[in-house]
């Protein structure tokens, strides 16, 4: 029984292993419409991500890239991926992100937002 408990404890101890990195929340919020152009797109993940291999880009409805190309992981918060934006015209935009968790596990995703 003690061995079983030890294995269970080993499996459940948080923080010492890494796994899939999934988005927790973002600015702009997924699928929402904004009154004005946002200064950046920021996505918070549920775990720390690798700065070198984590990217984000924003495209307009014609699939033209519109972000500033300064995608980065926040040095003060290893779960935050962000990219700057110029002033966006009204329309629909799509954010594409790709991150690598600290164990080398890649996760990709995308979502849309609108600017009025």
């Amino acid at each position, binding site marked *: 029984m003690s061995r079983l408990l030890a294995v269970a404890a080993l499996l459940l101890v948080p923080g010492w*292993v890494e796994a899939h990195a999934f988005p927790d929340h973002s600015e702009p919020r997924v699928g929402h419409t904004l009154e004005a152009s946002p200064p950046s797109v920021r996505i918070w993940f549920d775990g720390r991500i690798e700065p070198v291999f984590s990217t984000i880009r924003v495209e307009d409805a014609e699939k033209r890239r519109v972000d500033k190309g300064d995608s980065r992981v926040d040095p003060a918060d290893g779960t935050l991926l962000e990219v700057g934006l110029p002033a966006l015209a009204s329309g629909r935009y799509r954010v594409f992100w790709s991150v690598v968790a600290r164990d080398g596990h890649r996760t990709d995703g995308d979502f849309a937002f609108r600017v009025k």
Partner: protein
Amino acid sequence: MRGKSLLACVYVLASVLAASAPALAHGLIGKRFFPATLATDDPFVADELSLPTISYLKLRGTDEAPPTHQIDLSAEFSKRLSPDLGVSLSGTFTILDPDGGSAVSGFDNLEVAAKYVFFKSAAHELLLALGLSWDVGGTGSKKVDAESFDTWTPQLFFGKGFGDLPDQLELMKPFALTGAFGLAVPSRVHTKTFETDEDGNVDVKKPLNPTVFKWGGSIQYNLQYLQSYVRDVGLPAPINRMIPIVEFALETPLDGRNAGRTTGTVNPGIIWFGRYFQLGIEAVIPVNHDVSKNVGALAQIHFYLDDILPQVFTWTPFHGVLGPTQPQ
């Protein structure tokens, strides 16, 4: 003799349920996460452990057998041998408690299975796989009527997410389907049994072991997919990691006196998934009264070994350390 007949009837009903014993996997295709389902199998191969899976159902009484409470305690370990090939080993401890009678318990036969993913499309969140399971005859207890013969079940699996629907149907995108279709073929067509009555007369019986079409799957709505990829509707934790699901675990004998008569269950429930394990609970609703008139329950704790310790659990003989189950 009557006691044996009673138990035999109970065991026939129990074996119908045991035929849908869980064999599970989880995985990612594109940005779609599929959880391990509780009552049916899905198309993924992974390094994982279901421990325990607990099911309860009160079996219907018959003219010869009283209503019986059945509790199954199951475990399954799955291991990838390559990115697309996996094997699994599962076992079930069964407790049968007839009303007004004495409970019996024991292990059912071990089940060994292999699965190969032969088609993947990340853009369409589609996965197809072939599998073969082997119910190893004689490894279980006769007390719970574990068969003395082998049963081989070739299977076809699919998983399909609907993230490729047009944006006008965006709230449908979190939906996904899984399916599993198999043919359970017993290695022995008839099982010969001998019964002796009070006068010493020996009765020889040779009941048919039918070939059974096993079919089922799930329809699921992934709230994490909704929240992260479609529309942030402000769901708080832990709801934002929940997947409402309805599973179907059905089977239809193709020969014998019950040929063409489908039995099984429909299981509505909820799965919550974290980074290292998932929890699931479902109601078990029989599709007809052949097996039970009552609603049962099914619950599971499922560990993602490939995420917990990828350097240990994802070692493979020919492909080295695979790491966690990778999105494609």
